[in-house]
């Protein structure tokens, strides 16, 4: 059975139900019988929706081949920051657990090597520690600041 999804920029995507219900959000709509007409997704643009649907389709197709799926996932998530955050928000909105976890892992990987100063800059966070308080935390865990 096919479903119709409409992106925020009014593009219609025809998708097999089996693929679309990887999204818990869409799955609930189907189960509640609200999926007969076009399903509007005002929070996801067509570019992102296309990527998300590709993820979902491949997860149905490659379900039994763990290695192939892992290879696909690794390649899929190699996107630039802007696309990554769009995927993150879309996966959250559509409630696609494995995509959300993978995207979060990618962001974590991008953040992990940074210094606290770089984190604050990247994420626009204000440092509300006093210099003495910050120094105390650093002193306690010197090894974490070395390479």
């Amino acid at each position, binding site marked *: 059975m096919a479903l119709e999804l409409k992106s925020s920029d009014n593009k219609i995507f025809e998708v097999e139900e089996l693929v679309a219900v990887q999204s818990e959000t869409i799955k609930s709509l189907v189960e509640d019988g609200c999926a007969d007409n076009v399903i509007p997704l005002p929070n996801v643009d067509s570019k992102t929706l296309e990527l998300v649907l590709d993820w979902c389709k491949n997860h149905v197709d490659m379900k039994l081949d763990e290695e192939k799926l892992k290879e696909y996932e690794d390649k899929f998530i190699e996107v630039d920051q802007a696309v990554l955050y769009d995927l993150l928000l879309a996966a959250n909105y559509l409630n696609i657990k494995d995509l959300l976890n993978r995207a979060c892992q990618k962001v974590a990987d991008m953040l992990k090597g940074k210094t606290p100063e770089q984190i604050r800059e990247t*994420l626009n966070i204000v440092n509300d520690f006093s210099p003495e308080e910050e120094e105390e935390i650093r002193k306690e865990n010197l090894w*974490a600041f070395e390479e």
Partner: protein
Amino acid sequence: MMSRKRLPMMSQHIPAGVAYNILTQLPVKSIIRFRCVSKSWNSIFTDPIFITTNFKFNQAKSLSNNSRNGYLLYKENLSYGVKESHIVVCNNDRSLSRVCSFEIPSIHDHIVGFCKGLFCFTGSMDDSYQRIYVWNPSVRKITIAATANNVGFAGVTLGFAYHLQNNDFKILRLVCFQRELLYGSDGAEAEVYTLSTGSWRRFVVSVDYWPFIRDISESPSLFFNGALHFLAQSGLFRFIMSFDVDEERFHKIMLPQNCFEGFFQHSKCLVVFKGSLALIVFDCNICHMWVMREYGVVESWTKISVPIKGVKRFYGCTVKGELLMEKSHSQIFSFDLESLNEKVLDIPTTAKDVIYTDNFMESLNLFDVIDSEDY
């Protein structure tokens, strides 16, 4: 609970739940470092719920990660008289990845166990294993977890376990008295220490029809299937004594018939072999392994015998079922029981006090202990 974060080139905020998910997936070293980013980040990272979520994430990672096996710890005497300890991880392809090298006070004379990211050690045998240390190498914190009573002349055995139901850790201390001279009978007492409450609870050991345990082997206890397992002996009867960590009760598991017959036996111990409880005995140039294919079912003990020459010491069994051993020429190698294939590991022959543990895992436990020795 946490401030919304704005990311570059994005006008939308990341929802708090998503941000939390990202933070729990950071490696422990980064988490510790990011504590000083801001006060709200510090309070997230030190929150017990975050620590538990991160723990569960790391646990799932360690169970699914097929490329890693376990830790090997060893000490080396450096040329300028300083002792250095190394931790390496054994990978599936028998290569080693260095985790860290450091100078640490020689407290790991006797390893009690390793569970879910924490090591448990005691000091020397002289003080009846009174001081018990718990160490988390991923946050570089050691703490004196427990101090037991001095029991004078008695055999002491320790076990370290993870209590799944309470997400807590327990230390079991078994003391065997030899009171023949005074009372004409032997006895055993048990004490359990719970890490979260910091208290000991004492009780008497009775195992079915065998109320007295004369001798509990000093080979390390094995934590498996939610219980600690020991090789025990009462009179001439040898068996496995198990301690269920949740119920805090002892059970007896029968050993296979005739498993201890043989003239040149050495290194008998319990291991986990490919997910099953197993007993390994080295006899001359043969290694015998009995695998309990169905836990608790005596009839399911299955024997495997393999010729291996010149084994000096046995260190452990990897997740893939390879045996880690030391041969007479001080080289440590891994041996595959099925293919009979051996590979020498890249560990210096001058390495001392080698310890192998399985299930490599990071965690944030103990990061906040004050009364500890940092390094």
